[in-house]
């Protein structure tokens, strides 16, 4: 019995010691060895706020030690192996110049990032700052972002360095100014000039508003009817027949004429017209007419006219296995965002950019914008704002180059294309073709879809899942009645929204 008591006492002592040690760990100032730390510990350096929006930092370490700010990545870009060292250096540089703040980098791969952030938030271990994050990633956490307006005012942060439109893009009705512009990604039409030359077709127009010249010399509007006609001529089977010819074999296509941006049914529709699924009453699903037109056009392009890949082909190794199929070098035209320049180099040595076609006389180009956001749950909003302004300011060039992000800061825009044209591969050869018409991308900004296709809707993540399910169904299944399909999508979306409200 005595030994039992001794053992119990020993157990109790161990428990008390463990509790004591645990308490120390929690309350101790964060150290460089903490999990996810990519930066160095606080170094004796100072920095002053810069006119371009550089961060402010007190020169001394507060008595309680530096405040830890956790930066969560990657709800948008940022998880590529080539980007991680850049982010690590940014963290390291920040920590070296800001003794009062200890920045740690919390990285989750894009595909699991939403779940990872949800789990962190749910367990009360959420980050302070999140990014780069696009509208879709942010709307998955609707209502959880800090209104930056008071901090912008308090720190006299200069918003005039951005276009007013870009600033307003992050002004959300019931949430406030939830972001400051960082990187923008207008859309453009990527095309392969050699494929056009091969069959004597004129290139798509590089200027918005220009007409297209058909092979017979007639000029026509640059719209989706025109795209359909030339895309069919640019689609070839293994026997060399194009999609307009009798005997064309749709089961053995070796080159496709066109590829829509198929990441998201909403984005696909936004190239036909700006819109959103959320009705004016804030609870009813509405399908924008332009989107329905787009979905039917694409469906017919796949199953009737055969100039767009089926899901099976799109997922095949030969056509880039579910990646951006234009980059396989076997697709003549693709609508995509500017961030695709990261990977378009695989498409060959002679691609170029053209204007997005019009639908019913109106051009709409889906628009992406990434930034960093601060969560409402942060315990240190002032320090988080300092980090935010550092990422948008001092670190922005490094990060934007790494993310292939077009700077939202107007003064930095001209240098972006210049640095792209100067980029060289390991053998010292230029990465991008010399004659890429980058101006097309800049011109596309004025056609950005507004409202943005990724705008808030109830049950956001579940709704996105449903849209993806229908996208796969439509690109995998011939013979569907698209009117019925769209009606079914609408009713199923409504069921999700009703449940979530």
């Amino acid at each position, binding site marked *: *019995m005595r030994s*039992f008591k001794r*053992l*119990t006492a020993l157990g109790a002592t161990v428990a008390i010691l463990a509790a004591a040690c645990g308490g120390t760990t929690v309350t101790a100032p964060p150290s460089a060895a903490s999990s996810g730390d990519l930066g160095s510990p606080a170094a004796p350096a100072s920095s002053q706020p810069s006119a371009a929006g550089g961060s402010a930092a007190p020169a001394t370490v507060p008595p309680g030690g530096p405040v830890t700010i956790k930066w969560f990545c990657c709800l948008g870009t940022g998880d590529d192996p080539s980007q991680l060292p850049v982010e690590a250096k940014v963290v390291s540089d920040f920590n070296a110049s800001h003794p009062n703040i200890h920045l740690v980098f919390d990285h989750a791969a894009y*595909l*699991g990032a*939403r*779940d990872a952030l*949800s*789990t962190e*938030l*749910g367990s009360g271990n959420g980050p302070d700052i999140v990014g780069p994050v696009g509208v879709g990633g942010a709307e998955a*956490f609707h*209502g*959880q972002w800090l209104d930056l307006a008071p901090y912008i005012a308090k720190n006299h942060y200069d918003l005039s360095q951005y276009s007013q439109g870009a600033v307003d893009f992050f002004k959300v009705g019931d949430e406030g100014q939830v972001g400051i512009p960082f990187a923008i990604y207008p859309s453009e039409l990527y095309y392969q000039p050699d494929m056009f030359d091969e069959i004597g077709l004129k290139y798509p127009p590089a200027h918005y508003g220009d007409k297209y010249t058909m092979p017979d010399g007639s000029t026509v509007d640059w719209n989706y009817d025109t795209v359909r006609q030339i895309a069919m001529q640019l689609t070839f089977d293994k026997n060399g027949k194009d999609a307009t010819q009798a005997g064309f074999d749709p089961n053995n296509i070796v080159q496709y004429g066109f590829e829509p941006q198929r990441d998201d049914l909403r984005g696909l529709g936004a190239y036909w017209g700006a819109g959103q699924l959320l009705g004016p009453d804030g609870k009813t699903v509405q399908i924008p007419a332009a989107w329905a037109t787009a979905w039917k056009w694409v469906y017919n392009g796949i199953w009737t006219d055969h100039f767009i890949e089926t*899901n*099976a082909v799109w*997922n*095949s*190794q*030969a056509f880039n296995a579910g990646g951006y199929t234009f980059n396989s070098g076997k697709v003549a035209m693709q609508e995509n965002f500017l961030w695709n320049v990261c990977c378009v180099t695989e498409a060959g040595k002679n691609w170029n950019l053209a204007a997005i076609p019009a639908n019913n006389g109106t051009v709409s180009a889906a628009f992406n914008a990434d930034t960093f956001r601060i969560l409402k749950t942060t315990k240190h909003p002032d320090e988080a704002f300092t980090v935010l302004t550092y990422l948008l300011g001092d670190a922005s060039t490094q990060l934007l180059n790494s993310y292939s992000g077009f700077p939202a800061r107007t003064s930095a825009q001209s240098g972006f294309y210049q640095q792209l044209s100067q980029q060289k591969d390991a053998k010292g050869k230029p990465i991008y073709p010399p004659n890429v018409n980058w101006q097309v991308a800049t011109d596309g900004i004025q056609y950005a879809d507004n409202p943005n296709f990724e705008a808030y809707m109830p*049950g956001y*993540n*579940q709704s996105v*899942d449903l849209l*993806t*399910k229908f996208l*796969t*169904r439509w690109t*995998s*299944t011939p013979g569907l009645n698209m009117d019925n399909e769209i009606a079914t999508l609408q009713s*199923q979306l409504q*069921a*999700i929204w009703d*449940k*979530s409200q």
Partner: protein
Amino acid sequence: MTALPTGKRRRLAPLARREAKWGYFFLTPWIIGFLAFTLIPMIATLVFTFTNVTLTQDTPLRFVGLDNYANLVSDPATWASLGVTLKFAILALPVGVLAPFAVALLLSSRHLKGAGIFRILFFLPYVVPFVAGVLIWQSMLNTDSGWINEFLRWLGVSDPPNWLQDTAWVYPGLVLIGIWGIGGGIIVYLAGLRGIPSEYYDAAKIDGAGAWQTLRNVTIPMISPVIFYTLILGIVDVLQYFLVPLVLNQGTGEPGGATNFLNLYIYKNFFTYQNMSYGATLAWLLFGITLLITLVLFWSSRRWVYYAGER
């Protein structure tokens, strides 16, 4: 062992009391673990089902009665995911139960040379980390470059299946991946087969029984407890099928929702859709289904499972 007296409780002797205390002491870590990680979370999830808990809790926490259960009944995605699970079970369960049994029979055959080598070969995949195995299978089942389709093309199949991207072929594809892990089942069956007394086989031989009759009248009845055990585990596994679709498609349910298994839907409700209460309600649905099927199996086992030690 003496029978316990009825009525008045008997005081334990000092030695028995001391033993009981030590027993409880050594059981304490397990009891704490069970309470902290199983029982209390289970009770918590049951409580969640009557509330509106979300990960972010942007609306006030409140009691919602049976709302989550009503949602469950009217939610087409729940029944679709249950349908996906059942469709897969119909294909995967017979394979998961019969394939290891068949292999174990072959491995225990007296005519097989080098049985030990084969046992090792069949068991080896079982020790490969499962996620790594899934990724390897993903490459093997690749429509264009996977060696399974290369082999089918070599056989003359001009248009081999798009295993993991086609809603019709994805289940056979997943079953193929599942066969990778039957090593554990083979070992269990082998142990069962070796436990059958050889006298039964001798008697069957004397009675003139052939191979099929011996299998049907001796081997299967004698190994029926192992079949029962494997069946129960197989049903639990198939109802909780989760890891493979999560690794293959990052939980998107692709192609076209065909891999949106019930357990995956539960996970997504918890973490992706951040709706803890509804996720908990779905988890209790899964628990109820599993319990019901298991109880039915236990009830039916009296008719087809033979325990040699029972009277």
